[in-house]
């Protein structure tokens, strides 16, 4: 128990340390974000001293960009987890690693949501009045009390799931399904709930006809499923860029001097492997002897290439000593997908499936590697334990493939179509019926009684959304460059549509017919930028920790080694 706690704290300590280590680009990025955060903090301190008068909000428009950003980010958080569905329900392996990045994004987004709600409070010092059991919690009558529960619950769920999966990866242990599957399914339902509850905050207000429409909930979900995965597509490509170690082509010398003279493997070699891979002990002596047929041991020097991407041959490898790094080339760049130490395997997926190699393996230091023909590996895998460990480690690769990104593209594509369709429904209902409740919609889309403050915003949003939709539907966006353009456009478009386009016009005109325009003040804008910078800072740190763990470079096995 004590040992387990100590291990866990070592894990946290090492994760914490790595957040402070990086190349100059990392320091520059983090320095920039920290600076923006501090400007935001400064602006918030001014707001604390003078009150919300420093914002553009008034009694007429009593919620502004804080709540607009909150609403948008709840959507991002919800959508991040919805990507879990194809992986766990349909068993789609292409998205497997993407899930952890998605859930980490959810954590960062929820923290930003909580920050935006907090800065919107007039009396943040009285937050404890909201704590169930301590304060006076108006549950279930107030939708805001539901939001407190679902947001905090969602945060805990995602922190737990990501933390558990990453810690298992770190220990190179197979995650126990019982410890996370139930939570993953709860998180999926919970993701729908956080967004629906947030929509209900608005929908439930009978005095605001612009919000009091049943379609707001579905619209929220559709726009969230557009903006969320779009944001993840962009984030993943940044991860790919940053983890790219070198331009393709110069990875590894072509020299295969040692490979020229492999020696046949012996039972002692298997014993050496069993020392690092205890599951091998469960293999019967017959199977072990049989597996030695055709097996060889390679003594390789730093930089030697053991297998090459796109070639086909049927052997799998186990590292006996040293370290081998597996890199995958795509679009002219190569990225580390796995780093294998003693007892660990590589090349087994293509060997067992008989498919071309998807990556290139290079010795990172002088290493001893056992090469097994596919038939030998299958023989060893007749033992259940051996089978389980090999199978579970197959998924231990950091693979952000183009295919995975294009899967996300189809999610964005469909959601965007539904989003625009629902928006048109809303517009039709508002304008065709022509009753008095159309005032807010008129103010938003065409201006009302000489007030046009939101008109440029909403038409910009519609323009961006339509262009993004066109790009997404056209085959053009199968190229990542155009996909990125579409993603940026729909994130901005939906941010405006949900913020300036949904929260603000609900207040204009007021229930008594007054039209008071709203414009965020400089101080308010700085606070928003500060929170966004803080969220990005958090997400960058999460990625900084998660990527080496997923690649196997940060693991329990290499404790004590500097990265």
């Amino acid at each position: 128990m004590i040992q387990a706690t100590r291990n866990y704290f070592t894990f946290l300590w090492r994760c914490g340390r790595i957040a402070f280590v990086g190349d100059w680009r990392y320091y520059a990025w983090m320095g920039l974000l920290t600076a923006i955060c501090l400007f935001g903090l400064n602006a918030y301190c001014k707001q604390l001293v003078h009150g919300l008068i420093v914002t553009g909000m008034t009694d007429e428009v009593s919620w502004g960009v804080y709540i607009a950003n909150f609403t948008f980010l709840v959507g991002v958080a919800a959508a991040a987890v919805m990507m879990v569905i194809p992986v766990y329900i349909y068993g789609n392996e292409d998205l497997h690693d993407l899930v952890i990045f998605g859930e980490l994004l959810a954590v960062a987004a929820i923290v930003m949501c909580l920050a935006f709600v907090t800065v919107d409070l007039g009396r943040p010092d009285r937050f404890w009045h909201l704590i169930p059991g301590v304060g006076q919690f108006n549950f279930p009558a107030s939708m805001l009390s539901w939001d407190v529960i679902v947001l905090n619950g969602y945060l805990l769920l995602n922190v737990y799931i990501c933390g558990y999966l990453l810690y298992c990866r770190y220990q190179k242990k197979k995650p126990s399904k019982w410890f996370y599957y139930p939570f993953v399914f709860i998180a999926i339902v919970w993701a729908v709930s956080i967004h629906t509850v947030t929509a209900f905050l608005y929908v439930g207000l009978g005095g605001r006809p612009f919000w009091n429409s049943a379609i707001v909930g579905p619209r929220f979900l559709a726009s969230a499923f557009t903006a969320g995965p779009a944001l993840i597509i962009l984030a993943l490509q940044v991860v790919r860029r940053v983890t790219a170690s070198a331009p393709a082509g110069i990875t590894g010398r072509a020299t295969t001097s040692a490979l020229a003279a492999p020696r046949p493997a012996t039972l002692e070699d298997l014993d050496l492997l069993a020392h690092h891979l205890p599951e091998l002990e469960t293999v019967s002596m017959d199977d072990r002897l049989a597996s030695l047929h055709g097996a060889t041991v390679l003594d390789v020097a730093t930089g030697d290439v053991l297998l090459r991407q796109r070639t086909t041959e049927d052997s799998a490898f186990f590292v006996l000593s040293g370290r081998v790094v597996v890199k995958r080339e795509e679009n002219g760049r190569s990225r580390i997908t796995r780093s294998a130490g003693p007892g660990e395997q590589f090349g087994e997926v293509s060997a067992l499936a008989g498919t071309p190699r998807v990556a290139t393996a290079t010795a990172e230091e002088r290493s001893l590697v056992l090469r097994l023909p596919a038939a030998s590996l299958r023989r060893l895998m007749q033992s259940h334990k051996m089978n389980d460990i090999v199978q579970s480690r197959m998924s231990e690769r950091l693979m952000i493939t183009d295919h995975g990104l294009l899967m996300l593209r189809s999610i964005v594509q469909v959601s965007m179509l539904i989003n625009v369709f629902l928006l048109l429904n809303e517009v039709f209902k508002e304008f065709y019926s022509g009753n008095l409740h159309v005032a807010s919609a008129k103010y938003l889309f065409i201006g009302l009684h000489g007030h046009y403050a939101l008109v440029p915003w909403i038409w910009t949003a519609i323009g961006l959304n339509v262009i993004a939709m066109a790009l997404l539907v056209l085959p053009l966006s199968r190229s990542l460059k155009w996909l990125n353009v579409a993603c940026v456009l729909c994130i901005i478009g939906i941010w405006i549509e949900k913020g300036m386009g949904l929260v603000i016009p609900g207040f204009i005109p007021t229930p008594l017919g007054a039209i008071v325009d709203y414009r965020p003040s400089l101080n308010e804008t700085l606070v928003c930028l500060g929170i966004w910078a803080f969220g990005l800072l958090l997400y960058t740190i999460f990625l900084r920790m998660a990527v080496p763990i997923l690649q196997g470079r940060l693991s329990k096995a290499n404790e004590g080694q500097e990265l």
Partner: protein
Amino acid sequence: MTRRNFLRGAAAVSGLTALAASLSPLLELSDFTNVDQFMQKYYKELTPDEMAKVLKRIEGEVQRQYGIRPHVRDYKPMDGVEFVYCLNLTRCIGCRKCVHACVAENNQSRNPEIQYIRVLKLPHGSLDMDKADHNYAPAAVPEPGFFYMPVQCQQCKNPPCVKVCPVHATWQETDGITVIDYSWCIGCRYCEAACPYFARRFNFADPEIPKNRLNPNMSYLGNRPRKRGVMEKCHFCIQRTRAGRYPACVEVCPVGARKFGNILDPESEVSYILREKRIFIQLKEEMGTSPRFFYYFDV
């Protein structure tokens, strides 16, 4: 000292300096909260003794700030009383005397301006709020072709603001008045978004009240001075009506358009009006809020 350590130290020092600089506005933060205020219990959980202490403390705070010793009481609803308001739209001339009487009585902020009553100028024949003029300023009222409709908290029987408050900081009392515990409100402004009558006001800044204008007759749930960051609204002048007087707006109305009383008393003026008048309306009746505020006409 290695170059690396030097850089690390420099980064840490400049980081901490920047942090301190960004937090510096907090030095001006005074009188935001203190231990007593922070720890103060919810209104309904205060024992009579604790309430007495809280009232004393508030009196002291007001004296320190305004130089006048006020009399702060916790007026309780009376048994067998349910207040109702009736406003005669035929009579109202739009003079806004009610607005100013209310501001003076209830210690509302003069800067930024907070007013509980909003008088709408509407063209003859229409109750469409989109046609309302909120900022009319003619040389003399009434103007031909228009009528005037003052709107304030409608004291709903089914108040949306109470339902949405996440911390029970606002509730309906047995005499029908919806009140706010200013010491409990967290300032989320959800009630303000929920109110269909634009009746609620938020203290975006610390209220400013001239010292010589302070009304020293105060109630805990009513007109004691508020702080920035909390909601307030019309409370039918609790400090007057629960002591048997009329609200300030009723008293000041020069044309007798405003009537106030106990609907549970069949002899009261409001009972008579609601019994005898052929037409009276509740604003936005279709909302199902069931206001205790009725508009009627001389027909």
